[in-house]
């Protein structure tokens, strides 16, 4: 009986020592992950900065086209065509700019809301829609049809807004991002 208990205790001891090692390893990994998640490494900082710069360029490009429409004398070759090209090219990479972990949990100042990753399917759908509108905008720019451009600039803006309304923090209106 005593031997039986000793064996049991021994095996429990043995198991628990093993278990302890597993637990310790798991804790280290978990802790490491938490540290990785909460403290932005240079990669995350660069990722978010570059995303912001590219999106700002796209906003600037759409503004440049809008300004031409306001002026009523449209400079197709020097302004509309190259800027539409910029928007189309950049939009192609749009969905690569939001890897998991590049939200506010990264610790980097960003207006990207966690909803991007919570409702990722919807976010991806909206992103793809923006890509479609950007491709159309590029075609319209090449066609040099002013009325079509006006309509497509609006469609493009709405595609931008669709994403910004749900996935961009309203704080962006209060604070100066520059």
């Amino acid at each position: 009986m005593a031997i039986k208990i000793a064996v049991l205790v021994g095996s429990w001891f043995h198991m628990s020592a093993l278990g302890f090692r597993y637990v310790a390893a798991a804790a280290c990994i978990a802790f490491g992950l938490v540290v990785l998640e909460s403290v932005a490494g240079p990669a995350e900082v660069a990722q978010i900065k570059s995303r912001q710069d590219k999106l700002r360029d796209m906003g600037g490009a759409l503004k440049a086209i809008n300004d031409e429409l306001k002026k009523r004398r449209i400079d197709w070759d020097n302004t509309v065509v190259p800027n539409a090209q910029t928007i189309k090219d950049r939009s192609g990479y749009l969905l690569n700019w939001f890897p998991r972990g590049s939200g506010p949990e990264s610790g980097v100042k960003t207006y990207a809301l966690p909803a991007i990753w919570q409702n990722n399917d919807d976010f991806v759908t909206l992103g793809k829609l923006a890509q479609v509108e950007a491709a159309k905008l590029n075609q319209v720019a090449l066609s040099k049809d002013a009325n079509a451009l006006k309509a497509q600039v609006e469609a493009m803006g709405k595609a931008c807004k669709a994403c910004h309304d749900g996935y961009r923090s309203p704080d962006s209106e209060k604070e100066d991002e520059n």
Partner: protein
Amino acid sequence: MTSTESRMDAALAGTAELRVWDLPVRIMHWSLVIGIGICWWTGLHNELEYHLYSGYAILWIVLMRLYWGLVGSSTARFVNFVRGPKAILDYASTLHRRDTPHTHGHNALGAISIVLMMGLVLAVVILGLFAVDVDGLHSGPLSGYVTFKQGRHLAHLHYYWFTILLWVIALHLAAVIFYFIYKRKNLIGPMISGKRRGDVGDTEMKIAPLWRLAIGAVVATAIVWAVSIGFYF
């Protein structure tokens, strides 16, 4: 006759209904209230298309009010209510008293808040004219004269100065409540009816002719239209 009525008659003896605010001033005041309300709501909810329209309406009203402050009825004119520091301090020193006579039109302290509010409304509108919408859908009509980055910066200043304006409006409302409760003077009624009860001997308001208002309306409309197309004729 009941005793209440006879007391009322005694209190009203020697007083008359005096005209204090003309119709244009009252319409401009209340349409500005509605306009700022619409701009506030549409701004917060990113409904920028309607935000732009209500912004134009506010610009038109402020231009009209500035014009009416020069050529309008007597109580609307800046020369008749904007006072120097001495008059302002004198008035402020009687603020705690309840027996002070009613100023016909804006009092010296109220004048500061009028000038401050008008200046802030104009500043916020001008910032908005240059503001850039991040989606490129409904940027201000003059945003073509600034870069994307500058325009975004101006959009934030537009927001920032609006919050300052809200605080000044809050102060204006607090003053109206203070007059109503502490000084027992109803300032809201006259801004609706245009009349207040005053002594028979008080000077009446001089009403400006409406054709003068019509001239201002035509000019203000032309200015707002030119601004709305960004001066690209």
